[in-house]
């Protein structure tokens, strides 16, 4: 029933736990296992940095950790663009700390000892959010790959289309015949796989394609 670690498919969620207390690590790992969620635990944030990041999931961190603290790690991950959701655990209800963590984007802040259901709910929501995020990221990555195949002229035209100009205006803007702009637009629609103008504009937005500053 349970796939052995390492061979789990890339879509199987993995929860990464960091707590300096081995008893907590064991207990939490087994709690997640009892509902069929695979977890791996680490004694310090340093060990965590070697953990696989290709699978969806979340981090469960103790606020107080040896070396880099949970909050420091949160800041470091955010700086390096790692947006994996984080659930914090604390040994004592430290309000200012939890406010800081939540403001920095933490999913949840649980005080030990917590209700098992609270932790499982938080983990389930975090995994779902991470899945969504990965789906969006995948779409953007694919779009970007296609965008890279556009010619320089086509990219210019796309930017102007996305900013709402009509063919005639675009033609005037970049000094082309209106018919040539139409042909470029056709190519762009086909290459990007856009079904409509609205679809194309949405894609340009996702890619962050903007009209070049005059």
């Amino acid at each position, binding site marked *: 029933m349970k796939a052995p670690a390492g061979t789990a498919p890339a879509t199987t969620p993995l929860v990464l736990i960091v707590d300096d*207390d081995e*008893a*907590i690590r*064991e*207990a*939490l790992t*087994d*709690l997640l*296992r*009892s*509902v069929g969620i695979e977890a791996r635990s680490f004694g310090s944030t340093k060990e965590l940095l070697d953990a696989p990041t290709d699978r969806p999931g979340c981090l469960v961190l103790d606020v*107080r950790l040896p070396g880099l603290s949970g909050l420091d790690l949160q800041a470091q991950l955010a700086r390096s663009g790692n947006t994996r959701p984080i659930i914090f655990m604390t*040994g*004592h209800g430290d309000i200012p700390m939890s406010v800081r963590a939540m403001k920095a984007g933490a999913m949840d802040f649980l005080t*030990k*000892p*917590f*209700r*098992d259901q609270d932790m499982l709910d938080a983990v389930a929501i975090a995994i779902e959010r991470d899945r969504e995020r990965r789906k969006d990221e995948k779409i953007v990555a694919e779009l970007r790959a296609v965008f890279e195949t556009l010619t320089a002229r086509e990219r210019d035209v796309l930017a102007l289309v996305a900013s709402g100009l009509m063919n005639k205006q675009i033609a005037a803007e970049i000094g082309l015949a209106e018919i040539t702009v139409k042909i470029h637009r056709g190519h762009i629609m086909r290459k990007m796989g856009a079904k409509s103008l609205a679809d194309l504009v949405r894609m340009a937005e996702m890619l962050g394609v903007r009209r070049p500053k005059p």
Partner: protein
Amino acid sequence: LLRLSSPAEALGPIEHFLPAGDPALPAVLAAVAEGSSRFEGRAKLLAADGQVLTVLLRISFPDEADEFGRVVVGMVDVTEREQLQQTQLAAQAELARASRAATVGALSASIAHELNQPLGAVVMNAQTCLRWLGKDPPDVEAAVRAAERAVRDGRRAAEIVQRTRGQLVHDQRNDEAIDLRALIEETIPLLETELNAHAATVVTRLAPSIPPIRADRVALQQVLINLMTNGLHAMAETGAAGRELTVSVDGPAAPDVPEVRVSIRDRGKGIPDEVQARLFEPFFTTKRGGMGMGLAICRSTIETYGGRLTARTHEQGGAVFEFALPADQDTAQTS
């Protein structure tokens, strides 16, 4: 000195100058009764303007009884010196209390964190155990493993408590055979400034023959100091003449129980019922600015040496704190 406007005011009965209830008057009379040639001591005097002065008093008594109409009295006003001393004492006491509070605060925060980890694990393991058992079919093997972890982590929590108590009570424990009567005689002088500040006296009633007990001298002395200081504080509103602490040491209550009993009785208001139940709880205090750790630590110290500490209100008023410690069998046999 007495701020008199005219020499005539100085004439009159002694009650004009000695405030009622001052222990000096009976002490002077006792000296006269004993036939001493002079009296030396500290006394409170009422100045003509009503202010109370503290003076060092020296009275030379005449040899013949009929010459008592005139005695030579020497006085030095030490009021300011006394007030300064009292301010210093108060500051010292405040400092000691603040540092105790800081220590206990830091200690309890670290204990709370250290205990929370294994307790969190115990709870989580128990919850997980229930989840394994609640499955259809139940995964008994996994449930057993979770339950075993819960037991292990619960033991760890208990060890932390034990260890912490050990640190609190007998850090550098150094047990030896102790004659409690001697320890009490040594301890009372340490409280002299407190006794003076509260204008209180200590009366000891020591049984002639009691066995030694085995304990850490310093830890036990701390208990005595704590209980006696509490007694002094309890008598703050008692009339000056009645401020007496009675410290008694007795042998076993029953012949087959080899133990030594110590009781410290004050003449305060006794222990209200609602206080009695919580008296030994940590952080419970009736004193403004008190930590509520004194009696908790006292009881824990006495229990460490196999004894027990109890408190009650005396039939004739005042609180009695009593502890009993088992007699030291080794020393008793060898001596």
